[in-house]
């Protein structure tokens, strides 16, 4: 103990106690209670799976039969396509809204505030139905100078198909939520960073693109992942406007075959599968934007390697 030489792991010096006390060689105690809990949990889980697998009412053969059927896959394709398109448009409009909302310009920030107030304040289902029935409100959609001549005009019924109504409804609604998420992210960036970009004479756009948004992404990504997953499931709402998404497709099947539960299981498994993939993707994106942060994955890996390299010889010597 009194000897404070770096050769603490060498028994040759006679300091055997220090070697024995080296925490690197400490054993974990055997914890009966933990093992018991693990055992019980696994047993219950296995039993639960067994019950579900053997329950005739789930109709597993039907699930397998329909899982990769063309109509289901077509529905899945629509769900994914709608999600991607609506989300992309939502993020772009949301970013513009967030910047407008935060600007010193009273007009821009009030307009953005009004938009967010309206689209967050009304149910998505209602918005979808409104968009789908737009032709009952306006027969024609035209681009015109206010109170002046018309420049271009379209028949609403030609313009609003289930597809465009679904995209408009989902994207415009999503934009309102994304605007608040992005605004929160931008607010989370240290004010000193914004000041630095100003002092260096950066334009607002460049400062946002190069400095502010990359830092804001750390707090924007997790809630956006949430939104994306909600969006996948929210697309099932479009079945009310006769848009053949995943849920609509399985409904179409069980309306004919009356195999309600098996067909819903098909949809449930697909939804879970997609969200699982998205979770993995989100992990990668978070790690990317977490670079340079203390405790980010790259640093941690290096530390682990270094720690391992340092402990290995000590263990060998003490044995």
């Amino acid at each position, binding site marked *: 103990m009194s000897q404070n030489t770096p050769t603490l792991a060498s028994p040759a010096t006679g300091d055997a106690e220090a070697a024995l006390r080296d925490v690197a060689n400490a054993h974990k105690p055997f914890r009966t209670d933990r093992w018991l809990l693990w055992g019980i949990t696994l047993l219950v889980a296995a039993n639960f799976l067994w019950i579900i697998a053997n329950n005739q009412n789930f109709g597993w053969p039907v699930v397998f039969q329909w899982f990769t059927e063309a109509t289901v896959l077509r529905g899945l394709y629509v769900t994914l396509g709608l999600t991607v398109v609506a989300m992309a448009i939502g993020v772009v409009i949301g970013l513009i809204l967030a910047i407008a909302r935060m600007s010193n310009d009273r007009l821009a920030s009030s307009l953005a505030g009004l938009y967010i107030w309206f689209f967050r304040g009304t149910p998505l289902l209602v918005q979808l139905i409104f968009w789908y029935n737009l032709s009952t409100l306006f027969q024609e959609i035209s681009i015109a100078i206010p109170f002046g001549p018309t420049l271009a005009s379209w028949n609403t019924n030609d313009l609003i198909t289930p597809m465009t109504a679904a995209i408009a409804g989902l994207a415009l609604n999503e934009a309102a939520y994304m605007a608040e998420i992005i605004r929160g992210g931008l607010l989370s960036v240290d004010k000193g*960073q914004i000041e630095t970009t100003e002092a260096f*004479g*950066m334009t*607002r756009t460049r400062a946002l693109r190069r400095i502010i948004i990359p830092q804001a992404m750390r707090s924007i990504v997790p809630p956006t992942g949430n939104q994306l997953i909600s969006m996948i499931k929210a697309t099932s709402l479009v079945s009310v406007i006769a848009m053949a998404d995943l849920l609509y497709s399985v409904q179409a099947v069980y309306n004919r075959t009356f195999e309600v539960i098996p067909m819903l299981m098909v949809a449930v498994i697909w939804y879970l599968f997609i969200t699982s993939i998205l979770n993995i993707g989100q992990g990668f994106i978070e790690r990317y934007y977490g*670079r*340079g*942060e203390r405790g980010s994955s790259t640093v941690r890996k290096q530390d682990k390697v270094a720690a391992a390299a340092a402990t290995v010889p000590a263990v060998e010597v003490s044995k």
Partner: protein
Amino acid sequence: MTAQFSMNGIEPGDALVRARNVHKSFGEVEVLKGIDLDVAPGEVVVVLGPSGSGKSTFLRCINHLEAIDRGSIVVAGEQIGYSLRNGRLNKLPARAIAVQRRQIGMVFQQFNLYPHMTALQNIIEAPIGVHKQSRKAATELAMELLARVGLTHKADAYPRQLSGGQQQRIAIARALAIRPKLMLFDEPTSALDPELVGEVLATMRDLADQGLTMIVVTHEIGFAREAADRVVFMDGGYIVEQGKPEDVLGNPQHPRTRAFLSRFI
């Protein structure tokens, strides 16, 4: 090495910075109550003063991070934030102010390095993005500056992996990379552990020796004594006393200066 920092377009004898009757209030509190200051090209001015004396605020007014309420500040012939045309003074839009600021480098108390970029990326960001240099030219200059602040081996390190002193030296290199006519230092060593202050001050002393025009707000009396051409002492929103460091620091005339300096002896 005096030719390191060019003074394009400035006549000898002209002030690089000319502040006249500068007033600034935050709400009810008047922080600056009429500051007049001229800084000649190549001059190193150290601004001393107790906390709340307005010295940092004045520094931030010079590059218009804070807008002043009265008076004027002209840097290299341009009034930052305004344009005087045909006898009429107009406020400039943000984009034009950004252009004006590009000749002024600034070093902050909290370093403010971009945390998601490596040291090298931090340095080349403004030269490439703002001053439209080629990546190759900007990187060459950055490596030169990294060598000058003694951190060549840290080019690929992220700010969080660097000590405070190293971060501040990178921040100084970043400010130098835009080839500024004027450098502003806002308490550059106040956020540092005592043993790291020396390396930053040594870097700054090098710059002072090379003829860079610098305005330094600091509490480091030693730096003022060794590197300053002129020491300005501020208190309560006024410049109380200014002059050569040996006069102001060695033989202070104003009681406030004396009281302030007595704490450092």
